[in-house]
């Protein structure tokens, strides 16, 4: 059996999760990895029996690949997607799609024109618990959404610079905006407030107020001043039912369902990264109909997170699509 030849650009935390997942599949060969820090590229290459590259563009120009995983910091998006597009190479790209909206919109237009197979790393959508939440809410109208991403400040030097990371709302809380869209539908308008931090220009805390097209309302809050991850989750309220999904770690999630019969909590140690990677591979192999989060879909969640960030910066409500 011939194996799919894949490359991975980036060797940070989330890239490591993808590399581990990809290495576990019999029908995949990780042939190349790239990182701007040569030692990191070499270490990952040695571990997975791949060739190291000092940058993603070099990897894309020289390797014969069936697909590439783009797991780079937010500010590094753009040229890599363009290079993959130029070669007609399917790509899996990590969130956020960029530190701003413009970069991602340009890429989305090119992806659509090329009809390229893509997937975005909104991994919550691949959790069995989230599918269960979708089923519970399917025939009901969600009335209220409340979400919180209360965490520490990640250590990466680029993270605390808004221009580089997009800020917490765009870089982290985007997962909650994505989940809110999945479970409560599209958002019409967002208003927001934020609190500046003494270090870095990423706010210490921010809250976004959402009005959904359905008439539902919600608020999603972010804070980065804690010592460690404190509370990360989204709760949905509908008549007679509350559903909450929380994340303690990438493979540590919980679903809490409260209704007239009481409250029930279900835990999960599922690895959603392996599931999303497998789905993308199966689509490439013609064994699955489509990915859950193609680029165009990821763009809508990114646009919502960017709107929440902009509404806070500008101090006025933002209508999606404006």
């Amino acid at each position: 059996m011939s194996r799919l030849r894949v490359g991975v650009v980036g060797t940070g935390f989330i890239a490591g999760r993808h590399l581990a997942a990809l290495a576990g599949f019999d029908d995949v060969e990780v042939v190349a990895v790239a990182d701007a820090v040569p030692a990191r590229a070499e270490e990952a290459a040695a571990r997975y029996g791949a060739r190291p590259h000092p940058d993603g563009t070099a990897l894309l120009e020289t390797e014969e690949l069936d697909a590439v995983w783009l797991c780079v910091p937010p500010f590094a998006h753009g040229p890599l997607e363009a290079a993959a597009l130029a070669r007609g190479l399917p790509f899996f790209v990590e969130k956020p799609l960029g530190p701003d909206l413009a970069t991602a919109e340009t890429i989305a237009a090119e992806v659509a024109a090329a009809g390229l197979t893509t997937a975005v790393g909104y991994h919550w959508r691949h959790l069995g618990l989230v599918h269960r939440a979708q089923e519970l809410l399917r025939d009901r109208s969600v009335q209220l959404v409340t979400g919180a991403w209360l965490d520490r400040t990640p250590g990466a030097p680029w993270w605390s610079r808004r221009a580089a990371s997009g800020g917490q709302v765009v870089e982290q809380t985007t997962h909650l905006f994505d989940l809110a869209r999945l479970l409560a539908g599209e958002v019409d308008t967002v208003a927001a407030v934020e609190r500046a931090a003494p270090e870095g220009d990423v706010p210490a805390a921010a809250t976004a107020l959402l009005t959904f097209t359905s008439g539902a309302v919600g608020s999603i809050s972010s804070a980065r001043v804690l010592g460690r991850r404190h509370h990360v989750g989204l709760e949905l309220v509908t008549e007679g039912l509350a559903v909450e999904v929380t994340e303690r770690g990438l493979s540590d999630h919980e679903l809490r369902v409260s209704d007239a019969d009481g409250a029930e909590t279900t835990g999960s140690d599922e690895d959603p990264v392996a599931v999303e990677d497998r789905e993308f591979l199966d689509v490439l192999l013609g064994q699955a109909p489509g990915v859950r989060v193609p680029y165009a879909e990821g763009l809508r969640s990114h646009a919502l997170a960017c709107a929440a960030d902009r509404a806070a910066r500008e101090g006025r409500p933002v209508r999606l699509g404006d």
Partner: protein
Amino acid sequence: MTTRIGLVGAGFIAGRHVDALSSIDGVTVAGIADPRADRAEVLAARAGAAAYAHWADLLDVERLDALYVCVPPHAHGEVETAAVERGLPLFVEKPLATDLATAEALADRIDAAGLLTAVGYHWRYLDTLELARDLLAGAPARMVLGAWLDRAPRVDWWARQDGSGGQTVEQATHLFDVARVLVGEVEGGWATGSRSPDGPGDILDVCTAALRFESGAVGSFSNSCLLPRAHRIGVELVAPGLGLWLTEHRLVVTDADGERVVDRDVDPFEAEDRAFVAAVRGEGHDVRAPYREALRTHRLAVAVAQAAADGGTVQL
């Protein structure tokens, strides 16, 4: 000397006060008035007090040292005015009214009379709230998240806008009060609400707000009455290295040492009643929410509710 107290209203919260007042030495609940005479009689019997159908009779007949006003939100106004005219110290249950104008007018009358007042924002007497305030003294809150996700109380006036002022004004007001104590005054923000087709009465059955405090902190406050029971009611605070979750019953503290749960040691109803009675007797100065102070919380709750209904800006 015995302190003689009258109560107007014989509903749920009046019962809590009767129980608390009965445990204080030297306090006599002299009379209880409620337009539902059967209810007044039941509670009066429990307190060993006289029952009245109309509060005016209670005020005319009994010699009182203080009056508790435990009426539904829509019934505030006349009874407080009558008490002010008699110079009677007042304990008023929240919310102060369904609207702002009634409460503003009463506050002016109360101030002009120099009357002793207290308002039933009983969370202020939680020892756990004091602990939270101490913890935040070293690390001010950057964010506050309030939630009142509950069922609709089953009293007839509650789900009507003209009866209660809505859930934000009637219940979530406690969260705004706690936030003011712990984070300070609100500068402004945004609010939005919605009403589901099958929701009770005519109130917004969900409401959520994003607020900016004068300290620079931000926060969100959400309420819903669509759930089958009390689901999540409390205030979460985020400060550098510190997470707090305060409910009416406990405080959960998360910091570098991990997580610890502190149960309350104080019954806040009893504590607020003891503080008020001591003030009436001239023996204490621990009324934490006099009328003018409570009015600031009420103003915030009304501003959020109005913004949620009108789709927009919270204006204070």
